């Protein structure tokens, strides 16, 4: 049977086009019930379908066997409940799925996963194409009303259909909706309908499920204070109109980490002006949450403000403390220099919420037996969330996950519901879990589906594998890596040719040989994007069998590799480059130190050592060339922990030391990456996956230039080369560490390097490496980008074939987006892990005084770097419950005068470091200035630099400080 849908569409040019689509109605769509003999057998599809004897939680409302059928809003809001293992046998209508798909991609993904889960017995019923459940939109009916009606028609059909099954027990279909009118209509039509709350509360055996109910304001829940706090959000249609006409600007809302009353909105689009808009004050922030897409309205120029340098944290327990807030807002409005003023605006509406489940902890209400509590997310940029729970006592001190449901105008905090308990706060496992979740790092063990694509063991190289491969097993190849490295993805060789030239080869693990495009293993790796290295844990991108065994270029075993081989002269000029898939047999896996020792040792003269020396020599020339070209060498303190082998607690911090051999390996990797980038770009000008590093906008350097100036040094920033040269010259004999500090600051001015697809961009330049083109080729075990590059290169040299996604620049661009995101998150997760371990370290170490340098000066604090630990921290001069010292901030120099002590950037100070565990969720390293001594502060300056107070109980120490 055939019907057609007619709708009007506006084309891009603005023309109105009438579109008529066919819509086929079928009578072969099964109802999905296992007991049904009327429908055709269920064809292969996701999940297992509905059970004949529905197992699931017993409900007091409907004691008989029943299936559930939720409507769209219920599914969107209560997905957490539906995901609970207790809820089974749910019919998901196509109408509902389509609406969900259009409204929330994450929820759609989740419901799809649930449907695919055989345990859950969810069934997706294609009602829109079923002859008896399809309905046409009637005159005067909105499409929403039509969809609601379609859902009710389907429920009715199901109930009648199930009656026809001749079974002793009739199964009922229960319609779940939170929409009052829809429920009334359903009841009128004789459908059993409940709200989600009614149904969940009726589950006899599972009372705690109620906690996970999203609280939706539609339910008419009274909110205690009737006072309206926030201005109304403008409806979407008006916003879009306003954005088009330019009254409003659309952008991504980014809350400030340091100041809960401030946020920036990054305006979308290419406009030069007003890229970044500051929002200040609770009312102007107007319920936007970090990462939301919002519409902002610019304020008049005389209301513009400067980004405040104040650090403010929302610590109020009391919800209705609005007056207090206003007072705090005033702090922000200190008079500032005119040219510091930035475009300022207010949020007028939300275009798209980007809420996700948040990790954090419960701040239990002081009122006994209270059910309503505040939840404090781990991410400071997220506001606190009000949740309702009966298990506050159990949840206290635990890390939990909470989802936001809504934020009414009269509520200081958004409303949410409890989702999951992760474990005790402070626990290493729990905290690691939290930081992985918070940084959206996929870290579940690899699924069976993924593992099924691994090669079967024992694995050996076959004839087939040797096709298109060169046998390079005779070459003297070796690898140089950090100690303890199990995923060796690169190895090198170097030999003199008969013509006097030198042949250098970089051999990279051939991961793309094992990971074939499009299978589950490939998809999972693509999703992960990168291996994440935490302090004591590695979250692999590919399963261990590959990362640490088959792909790892270990010594004395045959391994598949992708080789990049150059012929060079002694001036390290490339004469010839070729790429080939190969098979190698590494002669040695060395550590940096071992390699260094061989090079330095006068007695060793074996093959490996001589090639290492040659490589080292060439690397030095290459490095010099690169630096002459304007490549930057920047330092950032890399911290490494020595772990206690038993407790796995860090016992010592150590900044990473760089050896000549580190830079030797790095140099050839860079060279290989550049060569490969050129090759794939030549071959695929539209689809090459490259990496670029944009030059930072000049204003980024302001802080660096000012800081250098304060030390009478000049830093030129007009080009990378000038910058590199001026950094080299910026030495102060009296202050040897200054140069390092300057380089650290420079790092902070840089932009992020990103992957991109060559067909979608025309600026390829890599600023940091001063290379016109660059990509990632050398670490396919831990970076997915390299796998794609390998595939492209393999096609380019005729060793492999393409597949559609590889030559689709839009898909490639999407992939780059994901990879960039994953890399960023991995970096953040790594930093968070370091921070957590630093805390553990200081927890055991107790209070210490250390030398430090001031890196940044803020309005009420200074950021210091402690070279000994490579640790950065903030010293606040304001403390709760203490008189604030007189602060005078000078933006020009920049400097901060506290009472009568003036602090400048790069000043050497001494700080007192200890762990502040007063807030268990945000345990932090607290630093207090010891030298120079600030008037009125009472830090014991006489503490020895390396005091051990391990045995002192935590609390006592804190008292000492106060």
């Amino acid at each position, binding site marked *: 049977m055939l019907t057609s849908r007619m709708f009007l569409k506006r*084309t891009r040019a603005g023309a109105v*086009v009438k579109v*008529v689509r066919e819509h086929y109605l079928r009578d072969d769509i099964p109802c999905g019930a296992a007991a049904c003999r009327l429908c055709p057998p269920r064809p292969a*599809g*996701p999940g297992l379908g509905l059970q004949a004897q529905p197992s699931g939680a017993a409900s007091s409302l409907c004691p008989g066997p029943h299936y559930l059928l939720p409507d769209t809003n219920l599914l969107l809001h209560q997905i957490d409940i539906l995901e609970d293992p207790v809820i089974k046998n749910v019919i998901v209508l196509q109408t509902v799925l389509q609406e969900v798909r259009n409204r929330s991609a994450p929820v759609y993904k989740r419901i799809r996963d649930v449907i695919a889960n055989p345990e859950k017995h969810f069934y997706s019923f*294609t009602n829109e194409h079923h002859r008896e459940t399809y309905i046409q939109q009637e005159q005067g009916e909105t499409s929403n009303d039509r969809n609601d009606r379609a859902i009710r028609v389907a429920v009715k059909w199901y109930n009648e259909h199930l009656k026809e099954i001749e079974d002793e027990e009739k199964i009922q279909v229960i319609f779940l909706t939170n929409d009052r009118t829809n429920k009334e209509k359903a009841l009128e039509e004789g459908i059993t309908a409940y709200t989600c709350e009614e149904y969940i509360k009726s589950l006899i055996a599972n009372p705690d499920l109620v906690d996970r109910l999203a609280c939706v304001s539609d339910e008419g829940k009274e909110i205690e204070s009737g006072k309206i706090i926030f201005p109304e959000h403008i409806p979407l249609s008006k916003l879009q109109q306003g954005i088009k006409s330019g009254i409003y600007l659309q952008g991504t809302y980014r809350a400030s980490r340091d100041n809960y009353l401030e946020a920036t909105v990054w305006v979308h689009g290419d406009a030069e002006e007003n890229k970044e808009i500051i929002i200040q004050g609770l009312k102007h922030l107007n319920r936007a949450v970090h990462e939301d897409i919002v519409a902002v309205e610019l304020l008049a120029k005389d209301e513009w403000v400067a980004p405040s340098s104040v650090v403010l944290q929302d610590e109020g327990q009391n919800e209705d403390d609005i007056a207090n807030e206003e007072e705090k807002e005033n702090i922000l409005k200190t008079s500032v220099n005119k040219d510091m003023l930035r475009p300022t605006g207010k949020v007028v509406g939300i275009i798209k919420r980007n809420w996700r489940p948040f990790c954090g902890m419960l701040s239990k209400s002081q009122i006994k037996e209270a059910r309503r509590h505040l939840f404090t997310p781990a991410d400071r940029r997220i506001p606190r969330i009000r949740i309702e729970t009966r298990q506050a006592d159990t949840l206290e001190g635990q890390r939990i996950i909470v989802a936001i449901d809504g934020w009414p105008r009269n509520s200081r905090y958004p409303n949410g519901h409890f989702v999951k308990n992760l474990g005790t706060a402070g626990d290493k496992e729990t905290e690691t879990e939290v930081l992985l979740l918070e940084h959206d790092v996929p870290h579940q063990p690899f699924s069976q589906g993924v593992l099924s694509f691994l090669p079967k063991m024992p694995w050996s190289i076959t004839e087939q594998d040797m096709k298109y491969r060169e046998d390079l097993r005779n070459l003297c190849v070796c690898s140089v890596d950090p100690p303890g490295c199990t995923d060796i993805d690169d190895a090198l060789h170097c030999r003199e040719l008969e013509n006097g030239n030198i042949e250098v080869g970089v051999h990279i693990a051939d991961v793309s040989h094992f990971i074939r495009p499009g299978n589950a293993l490939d998809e999972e790796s693509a999703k992960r994007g990168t291996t994440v290295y935490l302090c004591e844990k590695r979250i692999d991108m590919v399963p261990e069998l590959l990362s640490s065994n088959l792909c790892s270029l270990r010594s004395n075993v045959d391994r598949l590799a992708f080789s990049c081989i150059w012929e060079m002269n002694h001036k390290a000029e490339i004469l010839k480059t070729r790429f080939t898939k190969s098979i190698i047999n590494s002669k040695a896996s060395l550590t940096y130190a071992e390699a260094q020792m061989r090079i330095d040792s006068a007695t060793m003269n074996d093959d490996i050592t001589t090639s290492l020396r040659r490589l080292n020599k060439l690397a030095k020339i290459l490095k010099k060339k690169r630096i002459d070209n304007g490549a930057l060498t920047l330092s950032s303190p890399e911290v490494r922990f020595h772990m206690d082998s038993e407790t796995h607690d860090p016992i010592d911090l150590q900044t990473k030391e760089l050896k000549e051999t580190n830079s030797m390996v790095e140099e050839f990797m860079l060279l290989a990456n550049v060569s490969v980038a050129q090759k794939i770009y030549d071959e695929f000008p539209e689809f090459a996956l490259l990496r670029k590093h944009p030059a930072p906008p000049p204003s980024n350097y302001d802080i660096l230039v000012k800081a250098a100036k304060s030390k009478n040094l000049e830093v030129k920033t007009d080009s990378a080369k000038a910058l590199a040269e001026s950094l080299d010259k910026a030495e102060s004999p009296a202050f040897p560490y200054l140069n390092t500090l300057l380089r650290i600051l420079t790092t902070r001015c840089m932009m992020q390097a990103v992957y991109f697809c060559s067909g979608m961009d025309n600026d390829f330049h890599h600023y940091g490496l001063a290379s016109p083109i660059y990509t990632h080729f050398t670490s396919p075990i831990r970076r997915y980008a390299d796998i794609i590059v390998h595939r492209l290169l393999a096609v380019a040299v005729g060793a492999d074939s393409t597949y*559609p996604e590889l030559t689709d620049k839009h898909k490639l661009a999407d992939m780059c987006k994901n990879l960039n995101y994953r890399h960023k998150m991995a970096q953040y997760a790594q930093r968070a892990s370091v921070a957590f371990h630093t805390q553990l370290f200081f927890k055991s170490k107790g209070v210490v005084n250390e030398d430090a340098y001031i890196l940044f000066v803020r309005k009420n604090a200074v950021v210091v770097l402690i070279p000994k630990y490579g640790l950065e921290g903030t010293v606040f001069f304001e403390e709760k419950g203490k008189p604030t010292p007189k602060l005078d901030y000078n933006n020009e120099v920049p400097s901060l005068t506290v009472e009568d002590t003036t602090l400048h950037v790069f000043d050497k100070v001494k700080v007192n470091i200890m762990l502040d565990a007063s807030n268990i969720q945000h345990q932090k390293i607290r630093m207090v200035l010891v030298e120079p001594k600030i008037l009125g502060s009472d830090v014991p300056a006489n503490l020895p630099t390396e005091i051990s107070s391990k045995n002192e109980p935590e609390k006592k120490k804190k008292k000492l400080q106060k």
Partner: protein
Amino acid sequence: MAAPELLSDEGYRADGRRPAELRKVRARMGVFAQADGSAYIEQGNTKALAVVYGPHEMRGSRSKALPDRALVNCQYSMATFSTGERRRRPHGDRQAGELALHLKQTFEAAILTHLYPRSQIDIYVQILQADGGNYCACVNAATLAVMDAGIPMRDYVCACSAGLAEDTPLADRSPEEAAGGPRLVLALLPASGQIALLQLSARLHQERLEAALEAAGQACRALHAVLDRVVRDRLREVTALLGD
């Protein structure tokens, strides 16, 4: 708004078809009395007319006449109102010219042209409503029209398109599905399995070509069954009239 899904997890396409199913086909021969042969076909919402004039003497310049066979002359045009956005002219653009040439080649391969030396056969096709698979509908209509004209052919010519949703080949693409991805147009002489026309747009990996080709071939054979029924019904109708 998410991009439309080509194939749902349940295995249905956006319009409710399964991957291998054709759109609804309806056809009629002998639509016009004045032409020597004519036919009309609907494939989904795509509607096409074809008329055949000939074989007749060469029109215009006789120098074009072929000594050993008939000249097949084609024109492809689309009604100005046939597309979503109105077209400015019905034919004469590059695309129409190309398709006319394809049509000519396809039918030169199918018609027993050697039976009519020095003469001309005109095939004019006209799209009345364009909704995906325009060219295929034209080929199918033209086959019926040529038969209606009583011109001997080697075989039917059946054309159908196919696309791909990830790995699954989709027969007879609807315009919704035409938005992206590779497209394969196949014209088949079903009895012999010979290919009269094969056209592929957008990149498609060689390994997948086979699957797509297979799907398009299946679709062509299914179409052949439909067309064959139309021809037989028509024949019965006409002979019944003659018998009276």
